């Protein structure tokens, strides 16, 4: 029988935990590498234009500076699908912060001094970085991120809205947001005997290898990419970023190992950001609360380097039954850095707007916001008409309400004060799609009674090593300690990247299958194993990515209590609670950490995180951790995460849905709705900083 710690859902301790708490886990810059050089990039100092001349003489004169790569002489790259990686290839400056040179030196100090000594002359051009709903350059893209159609329409939403008895027509704004994983994007590259070895901080070393093979026109066999320990990513390390390309170029040029560790304040311009979104929400409802029309229209920006469209209107295609609906995206290309994935792209800003508007509708109707959501529970997925593989949103709302003592709430706003503080509570729903990609895994039984599972999964802090080992031990019916697991290297069987909350499902499936085969092989034989043991493999191609006849999503509900200080304008979260229905939870300990971590980021999105594209200079004003305030200890109260059991046979052999992103979805809406309940004022632009609160409270 399996040990208790092996059983699915058991709170097994993180396998690499001991390495991490003792400082022995090595991240991308930390592998001993004799003769290694350090590099420092030079970011463009204009928002649009061309480099006309780069003078590197002064830099090259500095002691320790080895070389300077510029667009004039950097190694040429072949085309890739990602134009943000075409660094140092031409003189064009598409946005401020785009790298125009790289200084490589014997030490970090010399590289940094060298970068300051590089003189760059520009021919600057007029730039435009300001997003408006009516910007003339705006267009309807073919698709939004994730391959979703830009526009979907059912029935006659405009007419249905116009004739609805109760109407809400509101605009919400979410500013640009930055991922800021604690480990900045870092790569160490080394060429040796025609082979390239890369240690990088990435959510998927397989993708890094494929892109490098493309850019440098190499066989993948000649490239090894390791990403054993990764200091967070939150989407910004999903595909390679310029640090990878620069490190490989510099290593090629110098013949020595080179580390490119991007300085923190350079990140916002080059690693992607959550694009700002302007939302218009129109909700029409009958007196019983049933939606008659739902229109969610989103305007967002992208860069001139490549198109990325934050799919913020897509959650409205999943959430509520409305006879008529329109969900649409419009994008404006500007001279801004290229946006990309940040934890729950689409859902995070989209559900902030939708769930805030639902709260406004509940108030208009005089209905409880939980009941309003329950009243709009659809039979099938509204947009596709597909049946849900499982959907327990109502259970999450009810369970959350029970745990939060929601029933004791006085629904009238601004009825609860403690001295200068106004207190309020709010609720919002959450959703996140189930995503899975094909992957391979191998499993081996060794003569000493242990097992080795190998798969190029990434562990960016999610605990994937741990949960995959649990899956293996569970299938093999052996104690967890007897399973060893290797992840995080292209030397291992190829697997998909850690993104879209897809990891456990995508990797667990082939692990489950390889172990199932191995258990069968072992069951069929007797006597000792051969020296090299017995091995099996599995590959889920064609199955993990097959179309499902079901609509598959995780759901959840967030409840928040806030205190708004009427004197200082500060809003603080006092309680935060999430309940999720996300398939089978495979490790209670690490799952809770992911849910809570998502909620903390949602708290930041609600209260403190916001970036500004400076109109005059064209870059992000809040580019470092002093100016861009991610939540700190003092901002974060005790947070509760719970889940309801969900048995869904339409997913994968484990019955799991992703859990890495849903925690951030709707959290900011719950907090914003609580701020309204506290103050009686609607705040429709994030974050809820004191200036906005005071302006709202005083009406000035």
């Amino acid at each position, binding site marked *: 029988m399996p040990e208790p710690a092996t059983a699915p859902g058991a709170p097994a301790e993180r396998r690499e935990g001991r390495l991490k*708490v003792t*400082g022995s886990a090595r991240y991308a810059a930390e592998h001993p590498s004799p003769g290694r050089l350090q590099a420092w990039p030079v970011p463009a100092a204009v928002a649009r234009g061309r480099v006309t001349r780069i003078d590197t003489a002064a830099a090259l004169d500095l002691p320790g500076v080895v070389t300077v790569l510029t667009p004039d002489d950097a190694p040429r790259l072949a085309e890739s699908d990602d134009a943000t990686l075409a660094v140092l290839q031409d003189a064009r400056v598409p946005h401020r912060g785009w790298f125009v040179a790289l200084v490589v030196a014997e030490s970090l100090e010399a590289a940094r001094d060298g970068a300051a000594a590089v003189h760059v002359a520009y021919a600057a051009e007029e730039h435009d970085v300001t997003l408006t709903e009516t910007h003339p350059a705006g267009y309807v893209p073919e698709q939004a991120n994730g391959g979703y159609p830009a526009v979907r329409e059912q029935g006659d939403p405009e007419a249905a809205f116009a004739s609805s008895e109760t109407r809400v027509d509101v605009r919400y704004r979410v500013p640009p947001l930055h991922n800021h994983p604690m480990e*900045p994007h870092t790569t160490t590259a080394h060429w040796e005997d025609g082979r390239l070895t890369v240690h990088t901080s990435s959510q998927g070393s397989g993708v890094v290898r494929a892109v490098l093979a493309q850019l440098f026109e190499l066989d993948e066999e000649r490239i090894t990419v390791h990403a054993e320990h990764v200091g967070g990513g939150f989407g910004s390390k999903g595909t390679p970023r310029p640090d990878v390309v620069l490190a490989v170029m510099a290593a090629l040029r110098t013949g020595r190992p080179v580390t490119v560790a991007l300085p923190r304040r350079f990140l916002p311009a080059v690693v992607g950001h959550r694009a700002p979104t302007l939302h218009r929400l129109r909700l029409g409802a009958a007196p019983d609360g049933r939606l008659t029309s739902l229109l969610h229209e989103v305007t967002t920006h992208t860069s001139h380097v490549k198109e990325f469209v934050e799919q913020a209107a897509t959650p409205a295609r999943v959430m509520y039954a409305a006879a008529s609906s329109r969900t649409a995206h419009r994008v404006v290309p500007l001279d801004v850095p290229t946006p990309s994935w940040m934890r729950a792209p689409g859902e995070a800003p989209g559900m902030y707007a939708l769930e805030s508007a639902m709260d406004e509708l509940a108030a208009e109707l005089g209905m409880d916001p939980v009941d309003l959501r329950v009243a709009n529970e659809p039979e099938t997925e509204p947009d596709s008409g597909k049946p849900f593989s499982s959907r327990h949103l109502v259970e999450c709302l009810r369970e959350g309400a029970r745990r939060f003592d929601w029933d004791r709430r006085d629904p009238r706003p601004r009825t609860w004060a403690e001295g200068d503080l106004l207190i309020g509570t709010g609720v919002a729903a959450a959703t996140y799609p189930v995503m899975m990609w094909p992957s391979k895994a191998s499993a081996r039984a060794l003569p000493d009674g242990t097992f080795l599972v190998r798969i190029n999964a990434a562990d960016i802090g999610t605990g994937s090593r741990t949960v995959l080992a649990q899956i293996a031990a569970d299938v093999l019916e052996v104690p967890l300690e007897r399973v060893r697991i290797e992840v995080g290297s292209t030397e291992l069987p190829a697997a998909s990247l850690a993104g879209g909350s897809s990891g456990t499902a995508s990797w667990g499936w082939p692990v489950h299958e390889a172990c199932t085969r191995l258990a069968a092989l072992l069951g069929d034989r007797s006597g000792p194993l051969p020296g090299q043991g017995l091995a099996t493999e599995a590959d889920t191609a064609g199955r993990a990515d097959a179309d499902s006849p079901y609509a598959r999503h995780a759901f959840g509900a967030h409840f928040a209590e806030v205190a708004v200080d009427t004197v200082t304008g500060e809003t603080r979260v006092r309680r935060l609670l999430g309940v999720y229905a996300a398939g089978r939870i495979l490790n209670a300990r690490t799952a809770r*950490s992911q849910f809570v971590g998502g909620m903390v980021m949602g708290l930041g999105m609600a209260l403190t995180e916001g970036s500004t594209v400076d109109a005059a200079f064209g870059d992000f004003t809040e580019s470092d951790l002093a100016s861009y305030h991610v939540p700190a200890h003092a901002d974060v109260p005790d947070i509760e995460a719970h889940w309801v059991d969900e048995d869904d046979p339409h997913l994968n052999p484990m019955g799991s849905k992703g859990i890495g992103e849903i925690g951030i979805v709707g959290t900011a809406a719950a907090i914003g709705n609580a701020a309204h309940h506290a103050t009686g004022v609607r705040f429709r632009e994030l974050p809820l900083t004191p200036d906005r609160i005071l302006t709202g409270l005083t009406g000035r």
Partner: protein
Amino acid sequence: MGSHSHGHHSDVTLRVNGKPRTLTVDHRRVLLDVLRDDLDLPGAKKGCDHGQCGACTVLVDGRRVNSCLLLAVCLDGCDITTVEGLAGDGEEPHPLQRAFLERDGFQCGYCTPGQICSALGAVAEAEAGHPSHVTDPALPSGRPVPLDRDEIRERLSGNLCRCGAYPRIVEAVEDVIR
């Protein structure tokens, strides 16, 4: 112990995790880079290099510092403890490291060495009677400050965790001060 200087470099001796280490450092070099790159002690992390994140926190003469803000040349003769030195000689991790494991006080682990060193520094400060922003002003001065959750949160606020492990970190710290 005098440091010998030659041009832009000087010799310094640091006692790192109990062992004297003599090296020649560039005057611009900060302790963090010395630890990570010269002494192969990558436990202290670089999150920002600007004193904004706390990932580089180590103990210098028992006090917590952001090692990215300290020039190594100024530390001749100092005692430096990094996360690698907390367990002592034994195999067993420090009780706070153990508590982080049990509570799952981390995810990616990149802020973790800083959180742990910072927490040990904070506990010592409270023990020595240093008040914080949230300390009750009525408490007698100079006496140990009891660390409730708000005190722990306040005192650890210089250590960012983008994975949002804060509630579990606070529990881990509570485990070792009880």
